[in-house]
C-alpha cells in the first residue's frame, strides 16, 4: 500500500537576485528590490514529500527521525543562517527560490532511507512557493 509522508522545515537565509549575464539596469528591471546589493533574507519553509509502501510492522512510510537527520545534514546545516549567494551551488546560478527548490531536491534525492523523494516545495513567503519533482522523463 503506497502512501506519502510530508514534513515541513524552516530555514532562514539571505540572498541577492543578480545575474552577471545582465547589465545593472537589466538586473534592476528583472529583480527589482531583490537586486539590492546588500541582499535581504527570508524564513523559507521547505516541505519534503516522500512516498513508499507503508511498513507492516511500524505503520510508517519513513522513520521521521531518519528523515529529519537526512534533511538536517544535507539541507539545513548547509543553508540555514547562511548567505545563499556564497554557497558553491549558487556560484553559477541565481539563488532564486526556483533554483533553491531544485537544489534541495537534488541534495535529498536518493538519500531518504526506505522511501522515494516525490517532491520538494519551498515557500519563500506566505504568498509564494515553488515545487519541483525532478526532471520529467
Amino acid at each position, binding site marked *: *500500500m*503506497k*502512501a*506519502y*509522508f*510530508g*514534513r*515541513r*522545515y524552516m530555514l532562514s537565509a539571505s540572498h541577492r537576485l543578480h545575474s552577471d549575464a545582465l547589465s545593472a539596469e537589466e538586473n534592476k528591471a528583472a529583480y527589482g528590490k531583490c537586486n539590492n546589493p546588500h541582499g535581504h533574507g527570508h524564513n523559507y519553509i521547505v516541505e519534503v*514529500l516522500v512516498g513508499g509502501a*507503508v511498513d507492516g*510492522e*511500524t*505503520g*510508517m*512510510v519513513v*522513520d*521521521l*527521525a531518519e528523515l529529519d537527520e537526512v534533511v538536517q545534514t544535507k539541507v539545513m546545516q548547509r543553508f540555514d543562517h547562511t548567505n545563499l549567494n556564497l554557497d558553491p551551488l549558487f556560484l553559477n546560478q541565481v539563488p532564486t527560490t526556483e533554483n533553491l527548490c531544485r537544489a534541495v531536491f537534488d541534495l535529498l534525492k536518493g538519500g531518504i532511507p526506505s522511501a522515494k523523494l516525490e517532491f520538494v516545495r519551498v515557500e519563500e513567503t506566505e504568498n509564494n512557493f515553488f515545487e519541483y519533482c525532478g526532471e520529467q522523463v
Partner: protein
Amino acid sequence: MIELTRRATFSASHYYWNEAWSAEKNEEVFGRCANRNGHGHNYTLEVTVAGEPDKVTGFVVDLKWLKEVMQSEVLSAYDHRHLNLEAPEFAHVNPTTENIAIASWRRLEPAIREAGGARLTRVRVYETADIFAEYRGEA
C-alpha cells in the same frame, strides 16, 4: 476536471505499539509515541475530490454534502476518541498518520462513489502543522 478540497479538524489520542515486539524494541523504534498512556493531536483532514462542475449548479460536489460525509464517516469515529482503543481498524494496526490517511480513504470512498459524480483522489491528514501523510488510493 476540477479538484476540490475540503478541510476538517478532529482531536484524538493514540500511541504506537507493535504487539509482536518487546517493550524495549517498541520504545527504541517509537520513542515517546510508545507511551501506553497515549498522547494526542489536533488533526486536520483534507479530502480532495475531482470531477466536472455540474452544468446547472457549477459545483463539482455540494460542499455541505461533503462536510456531512466527512462528519459521518470519519469525524464521528475519530473525533475526541482514543484511536487505538475506539477505532476498530486500529485494534491491531498502528494509528500512524499514514494509516489514518489510508483508513480515512476507506471510510470515505464508498460513500463518495455511491453518490456518483465526483471521485475521491486524495486524503491528506496533518498530525501537526509540519507533519502530514497522504493516500491516493494506490495499491
